[in-house]
């Protein structure tokens, strides 16, 4: 595995994080539009920011308090810890408003178009951690990863029309094919912790669709390959329609995958906490309950469309900037990931409160 040549083009944000116009706070999801702009789910600031190709802010949407600081909110165009974001073919923006258990859809200019979803386990509802992944497929349908609920696990991918009407879902809780999140025993999460703060098993997280997949066929319900980060099962599942067995990608290579991006030619990029051994046993004795992560523990792994490991994206210098060595928990890491749609050799990766722009040459 030779891997790609990686160089740093730019880093955006402030190392220590912040709420100013040039800062982010744990921007844990990224999406590139078709104009070369970058959409940022600025999770800890409860806002969505659109950046031009040079990292300049075009607009931001989210609630602010009377002093102009970001806050969480429940009105339209307000967010609570958004953790996934994507764009459709017209560069409309879908945001997984995770803490509010709903999806909000915006125009390329940031105007609200619609919103849908709520907390629960009925069709169209999302579990206690809210939606954690979102993508648009080749037919414009919206695929959303759903988390556990207080009553057990949703652990499914739900599909909606562009207007938010529920269509169907796939997946369930477990470790088998087409199942998500099943590495941890399922308890009645949320009873102890309430909506939104229960550390349930994380099932499907990031989603990416390869709409140029070479095996589009009539008999496949889902024409493109749908890659889903199956976080607590430590794998990425590639769905290729109902009749073809799914691919399981990343055994032994990826750990707790969170976001996925796919190139037009099929290469799959996966962010998360990778190859961290032994993952659950390394504690910092000075900070009980906090995970201590090795400096090398977080990078982006890259696979072929069929799961062959190709290499990793990440630089020692940029890892040194991140604050995860005495980790503040599994939520405080670099999950955000996107490929520039005009030039797929440009890869955007979150590093704690920063966003790195890498040149990746294969």
């Amino acid at each position: 595995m030779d891997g790609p040549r990686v160089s740093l083009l730019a880093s955006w944000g402030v190392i220590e994080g912040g709420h100013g116009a040039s800062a982010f706070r744990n921007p844990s999801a990224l999406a590139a539009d078709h104009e070369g702009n970058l959409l940022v789910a600025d999770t800890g600031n409860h806002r969505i920011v659109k950046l031009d190709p040079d990292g300049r802010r075009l607009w931001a949407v989210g609630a602010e308090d009377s002093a102009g600081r970001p806050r969480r909110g429940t009105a339209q165009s307000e967010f609570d810890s958004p953790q996934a974001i994507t764009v459709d073919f017209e560069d409309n923006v879908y945001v997984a408003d995770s803490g509010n258990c709903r999806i909000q859809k915006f125009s390329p200019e940031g105007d609200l178009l619609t919103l849908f979803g709520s907390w629960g386990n009925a069709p169209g509802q999302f579990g206690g951690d809210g939606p954690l992944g979102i993508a648009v497929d080749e037919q414009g349908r919206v695929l959303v990863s759903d988390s556990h609920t207080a009553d057990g696990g949703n652990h499914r991918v739900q599909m909606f029309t562009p207007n938010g009407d529920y269509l169907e879902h796939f997946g369930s809780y477990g470790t088998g094919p087409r199942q998500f999140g099943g590495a941890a025993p399922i308890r009645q999460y949320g009873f102890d912790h309430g909506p939104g703060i229960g550390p349930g098993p994380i099932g499907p997280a990031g989603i990416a669709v390869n709409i140029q997949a070479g095996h589009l066929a009539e008999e496949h319900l889902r024409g493109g390959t749908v890659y889903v980060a199956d976080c607590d099962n430590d794998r990425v599942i590639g769905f290729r329609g109902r009749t073809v067995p799914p691919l399981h990608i990343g055994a032994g290579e990826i750990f707790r995958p969170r976001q996925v991006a796919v190139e037009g030619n099929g290469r799959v990029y996966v962010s998360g906490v990778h190859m961290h051994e032994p993952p659950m046993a390394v504690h910092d004795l000075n900070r009980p309950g906090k995970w201590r992560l090795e400096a090398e523990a977080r990078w982006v792994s890259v696979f072929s469309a069929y799961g062959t490991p190709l290499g990793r994206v990440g630089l020692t210098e940029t890892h040194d900037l991140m604050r995860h060595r005495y980790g503040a928990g599994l939520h405080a890491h670099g999950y955000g990931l996107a490929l520039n749609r005009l030039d797929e050799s440009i890869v955007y990766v979150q590093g704690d409160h920063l966003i790195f722009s890498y040149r990746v040459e294969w």
Partner: protein
Amino acid sequence: MVTGPGIELLSAFGPKQGGHLPGQFHNPEGLASDSRGRILVADETNHRVQRISPDGEPLWSLGAVGADGRPSHGTAPGQFFMFRGIGVDADDNLFVGDSWNNRVQKFDSVGSFRMMFGSCGNKPGQFGGAGPNGLAFDADGHIYVSDTHTYLGGNNRVQKFDHRGRFVAAFGGHGEEPGRFAGRSPLRGRYGHEIGRGATSPEGPYGLAVGPISGHLYASDTENNRIQVFDLQGNFLRSIGGGAVFQPRQICLDSRENIYAAGFHCPPDVAGIGPVVPVGPQHRFLWILSKDGDLLATITADEADGMFDHAGGRHHAVAVSRSDEGLVFIQAGHRILKFRVHW
């Protein structure tokens, strides 16, 4: 003994057993009148809003429709999930307390979606597990929403939002003290444990209304068997109805600021446990109070002429026509009863 106005039952809308066709209802748990006296019905287990004429003719409805053509719950704009709160503001905009979606939706007077806000939780702007219940509006465009308990315990508060649905303030909390709600039942750790999603106990605040004369906010405090009055900043002013009303749920006001409160008809000792006791005159289910709390009239099983469904049916909703204030609409199980009060 109250010697009040004459009460006349005019008609009953919908079949006793309920239904899903237009003009039929299934647990119409919320009622509101627009300025022309048309009634907006929170058709709870049909997951839809119906607008009906004062004579019960179906005009239009909002809500999801399933593949089988029957009403269905949903989470998109204009779709609902088990809701009870409904209100119409001074401009005839419709607000729906979309209970199990834990949000409020706003529509204009012809039923076009305008906005929504809220989600599930106990933070500002979020609603408890049974979702928002009552709705009220002040002259400055603020929206008041009564909030239920959560898995974590009780929200049991009134939340105030601006005209765009942005959180402004919250007041109340679980307790029996003045200004608090639902404290008659002890607050256990996490409601919903045993009884699942949407469990409604302890209940309160429930119905909300802003007085057209005083400008005060009236909130029915179901479990505490009273109606509390606040100023619009949430300061407690007084409590009324104690000893007269029992388990008040939806309330509405007429232009004289008389209070119409719909209540459950079971005595507290048996409510929710075992067979429902026979309905007697002492188990009144609608009270009309003056704004100072004097009991002006009651509508009981006697006036309901056998339409009163006491086999588990609920009687939580009430609306006074805004174009003809003698007309009072009351939920009776799956039906809506139309009365005339001869003042």
